[in-house]
């Protein structure tokens, strides 16, 4: 009996897609609804509030983090493109840079959070900060998840490239789709929380 999982590389005749591709997009669809629920909650709370604070967040640090995530999206797509061009060394370099950028993002976030907690401004302090910590906290967890997956592909998961390079390339593509989605969420979080 063939125990291999089917359609990891070749496309299914009915969908025209490898199973993993459709799977990651369905997962991202559920993620859209998860973050959509939080954005919807934000709108309700903001419309219902008599006043909404401005200037409580560190805009330069938020902008720097936006730049970092955009750069990490570029390096992620380059990591995938390098695999497609059979450039293993360049793939590893770009994936490593993506991980480093993600960690720098998290370090910046740590400093932002620490500054708030140092002045007693935790999520309990105001509705705005509750929204801020919930949304950026969930986003931060997604960053950590992405880092774990990328580290796996830099470490033990890299062995798959020797056995089945096409399957490995597909896995990096799916990781990239997830990572670009995390970047996309931040593109909306930054103006909504920091600027408006």
């Amino acid at each position, binding site marked *: 009996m063939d125990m291999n999982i089917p359609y990891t590389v070749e496309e299914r005749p009915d*969908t025209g897609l490898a199973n993993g591709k459709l799977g990651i997009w369905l997962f991202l669809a559920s993620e859209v609804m998860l973050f959509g629920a939080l954005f919807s909650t934000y709108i*309700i709370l903001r419309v219902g509030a008599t006043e909404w604070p401005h200037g409580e967040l560190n*805009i330069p640090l938020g902008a720097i983090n936006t730049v970092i995530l955009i750069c990490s999206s*570029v390096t992620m797509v380059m990591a995938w493109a390098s695999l497609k061009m059979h450039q293993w060394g360049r793939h590893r370099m770009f994936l490593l840079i993506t991980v480093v950028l993600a960690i720098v993002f998290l370090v910046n976030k740590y400093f932002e959070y620490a500054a708030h907690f140092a002045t007693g401004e935790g999520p309990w302090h105001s509705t705005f900060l509750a929204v801020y910590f919930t949304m950026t906290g969930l986003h931060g967890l997604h960053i950590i998840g992405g880092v774990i997956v990328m580290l796996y592909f830099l470490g033990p998961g890299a062995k798959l490239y020797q056995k089945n390079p096409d399957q490995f390339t597909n896995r990096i593509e799916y990781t990239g789709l997830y990572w670009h989605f995390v970047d*996309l969420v931040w*593109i909306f979080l*930054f103006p909504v929380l920091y600027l408006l």
Partner: protein
Amino acid sequence: MSGHDAEHVQKALKTYLMIGVSLLIFTGITVGANQFHFVVPVAITVALIIATIKGSMVASVFMHLNQEKRWIYGALVLTVFFFIVLMTLPLFFTLDNIGTAVKAIPAAAEHTGGH
């Protein structure tokens, strides 16, 4: 992305870099526009338009949505539909005054007191 060969990807590299630079420029515009202190509805509109442009660039180029299969588009059409429903929900709450209870309390109390 489906059916990309090495040659096609090689040509796309320049596009990826250009989109990356464009995203950085739009980020600068977003922060710059914030310095003008527009009235809130204008500020929200400007910020969300720029964010939507940036999001579209990421989704279409980096996530290759500009050349995907119809099953992916089908799943995303459903997602967009339910996302719009989700974003419309606050409107119903507002119309119901559920979301504006804090503002409504003094007026309601005054109204009740008068009768």
